[in-house]
């Protein structure tokens, strides 16, 4: 059964950042030198071919874009300057929008107006909650709350309210991600892959998912190891912070200022360092544009970095104002922190760049499943 060529698909793909999609003349140099490309999962050339011909179903069933960690060697060695690395990056954006059943991802990737609009709307909701909703629930700004030297975070932002909100947000994000991952599984393994994998294989290979989530061994296969390191710091810093804030908020958001060596503070400092280091490498790289992997920046790349940086900075400010005993400054920083954090998590994690935290390890897992698959 032959598949229909869909030239119109390229107009869609271009919105996801695909530049000169036709420069490639299929010499295969990129695939030959890629340390991650392997028999049965060859890329980037084959994926570029699918893109050029607009074979939508075959693209949607591709796991390969997620197996690429964008070291950029393919783009450097390309004799036609077709930038295969960036084409793979654009494909990841496109696939993110394909997995997402709500259609929001596509809106955010293809329209800056939508993305910025939602960020601002979420931020405004957060500010409003602090100024109107919380007071209406009986948490008023009393004289003691704003008195010099007496920072009472838990009175300003009551733990159980924030915690409930955190859990709700996490639940929304998780349910979106899980449903999208199921769609990803359906497209890669079931629908177009036309394969059957036993339950036992699913269980046996599950460790790969955890391994790839925590240490990204595939990323480390790229020739340049520096980015693996900076990415790992960023990732581990963020994950620690996320777990601490959502799961252990009462342990973390304490009224009492604990000593510096207390794990609460040490963990916080590590997470902050990890975030800042990773962000520094990425931002400097994207500004300098010396390394080929940072040559092209989609608007979504910058928005993600900007929001993460703002989250980190406002988080640091809360900490500084709190230990120096400046209540009003602390509360304002807290509101600012939440008004960046909330849209970032609600938009970036399920719908945009940050969703890769789930898709990448799952892709490695699905790749492994495909290896043990039998035709259905």
């Amino acid at each position, binding site marked *: *059964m*032959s*598949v*229909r*060529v869909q*030239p*119109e698909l*390229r107009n869609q793909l271009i919105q996801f950042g695909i530049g*000169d999609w*036709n*420069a490639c*003349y*299929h010499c295969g140099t990129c695939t030959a030198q890629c340390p991650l490309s392997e028999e049965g999962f060859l890329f980037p050339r*084959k994926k570029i*071919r*699918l893109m*050029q*011909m*607009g*074979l939508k179903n*075959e693209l949607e069933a591709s796991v390969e874009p997620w197996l690429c960690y964008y070291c950029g060697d393919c783009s450097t060695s390309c004799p*036609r300057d077709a930038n295969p690395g960036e084409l793979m990056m654009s494909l990841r954006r496109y696939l993110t929008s394909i997995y997402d059943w709500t259609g929001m991802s596509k809106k955010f990737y293809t329209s800056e107006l939508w993305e910025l609009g939602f960020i601002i709307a979420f931020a405004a909701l957060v500010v409003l909650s602090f100024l109107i909703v919380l007071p209406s629930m009986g948490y008023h700004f009393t004289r003691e709350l704003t008195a010099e030297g007496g920072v009472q975070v838990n009175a300003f932002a009551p733990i159980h309210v924030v915690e409930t909100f955190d859990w709700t947000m996490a639940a929304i994000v998780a349910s979106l991600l899980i449903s999208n991952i199921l769609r990803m599984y359906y497209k890669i393994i079931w629908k177009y892959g036309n394969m059957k994998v036993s339950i036992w294989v699913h269980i046996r290979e599950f460790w790969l998912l955890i391994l790839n989530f925590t240490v990204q061994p595939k990323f480390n296969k790229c020739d340049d190891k520096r980015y693996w390191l900076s990415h790992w710091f960023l990732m581990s810093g963020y994950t620690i912070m996320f777990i601490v804030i959502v799961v252990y908020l009462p342990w973390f958001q304490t009224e009492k200022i604990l000593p510096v060596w207390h794990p609460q503070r040490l963990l916080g400092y590590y997470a902050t360092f990890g975030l800042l280091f990773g962000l520094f490498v990425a931002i400097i790289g994207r500004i300098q544009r010396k390394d080929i992997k940072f040559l092209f920046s989609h608007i979504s790349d910058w928005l993600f970095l900007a929001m993460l940086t703002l989250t980190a900075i406002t988080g640091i400010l809360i900490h500084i104002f709190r230990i120096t005993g400046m209540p009003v400054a602390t509360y304002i920083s807290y509101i600012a922190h939440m008004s960046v954090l909330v849209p970032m998590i609600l938009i970036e994690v399920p719908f945009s760049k940050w969703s890769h935290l789930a898709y990448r390890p799952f892709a490695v897992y699905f790749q492994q499943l495909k290896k043990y698959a039998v035709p259905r």
Partner: protein
Amino acid sequence: MEEPRIGVYVCWCGTNISKMVDVEAVTKEVSTLPSVVLSKNYKYMCSDPGQDLIIKDIKSHNLNRVVVAACSPRLHELTFRNACEKAGINPYLFEMANIREQDSWVHTDRTEATKKAIDLVIAAIRRVRYHESLQKRSVNVDPSTLIIGGGISGMTAALEIANAGKKVFLIEKADHLGGQVARFDLTFPHLSSAQQMIGPMIQRVENHPMINVYLNTELKEVKGYIGNFTARLQFMGVEQPEITFGNIIAAVGLKPFDPSVIEEYSYGKFPDVITSLEFEDKLRAGRILTKYGKEPRNVAIIHCVGSRNKKYHEYCSRVCCMVALKFVHEIRAALPDANIFEIYADMRAYGKGHEEFYAMTTHKQIIFLMYDQQKRLPVISEAHRDDDCNMLIEMNELLSGIDIEVPVDMVILMVNMEAHDNVKEVVRAIGVSLCGNQFFIEKHPKLDPVATTTGGVYIVGTCQGPKDIPDSVAQAKAAAARILGTIAQGSVAVEVTTAVVNESLCCGCQTCISVCPYTALSYDEIKKASVVNEVLCKGCGTCGGCCPAGAITSKHFTDRQILSEIEGIMSMSY
């Protein structure tokens, strides 16, 4: 016959011969043979001192035959013949033994190689005894030229010769000049207009005082030889007065392949499957429309139609890839939103500016789809009722390995260039040979690409093989320069070693006439015997070989000479 006095010279060729052949031993061995007056060896016989040695010996020892054992006669036969002539003996009383290419270079055993060298020299000595003096001849050249074909090649050659003040007869079968180029819209890779190029050229040719243009005219017969041809022409079936000329240029061009024989493409069945030339017609008319008068939304261009496929033609037509890319530019300009598919087998961008043109075209938003010419051709079929296109092309896309289906409204077939099948009369009349693909064969593929083995007959342009405009024009100018050279000289030397018919032995069977590749033989009704035109004869010996009566001998290759040579080679028994 005077008593032969033979001088033998063995060359060392530096170490080329001497390292594998004992030159001294050869010299000594042959020195005692009958009629050998002297036998010498020298480091480089072809050098000036080497030649002087021969000249001096001829004079002082009164030699009348010379044998040089050295390299191939292709290289230095003329050198030594000239030396003999300088010394006052006929150059044909010379014979060369090839002990380099046929001996020292190809053997590894010095003793055996030396023995072989002795055999070869003895053979030459035996042969040269029977050599006869032959006289060089030349013929005057008529300054007019006949050019067959009024395409871009023929017209270029005509203008070149006419601008030098020499008469040209330009005959064209069609009712207009311009050939295939007149059908093109733009040319590659500069996208300049073919019309603006060919139009003024036709005008210049038609108005040139030194060019006689014969439209609707066919060549019926050519008689004569280099420098002195006559031809019969036919204008719309009516015989014309005979014309005379000294040289001929064949520029008959070629024709587009008829794709209706390729079932897969359904050419002739679907009205919107058209050939590249039919598409040129649409471009010149300025509108790209389907049969139903609509602008096509999907246009496919299929490459290599009839080319590079053993079923049709094995050769590559060379220009179609670039023409197809040119089409992309023209389609994109006319239909900015159309989907354009280039269905190709290999992209060949060999010429100046072609690779750049190819790279530039990839930015025109086209989709390249590769198919395997040897395995499976794309198949064009009617679209389903609910499709928003007219036709579908099914193919195995080679770069992805996926079986795909391409929606199309118009398909352009990049047809192969094939030889005319109706130029047999021209071929016969001017005596050119055809290769397996029915293209005219040049004298030497590299060193003499516009001449033929028939003196005074040149081939230019696509009748020699598929080529683009610049190559055709270059060939036309090259042939024109060659012809102007012979006209300037006024005369040309002709072959001396021709065939001779002994009329009293000839039985009149005319076998020789049917085998002669140069139309040099004819039958004399009065003498009842074959006659050789010595100007046309190249001395190939075919006629002599097939003459049942033994009536034909080839000068310089008589039975006596050849048998003596064989006797010589067999005479030593080691």
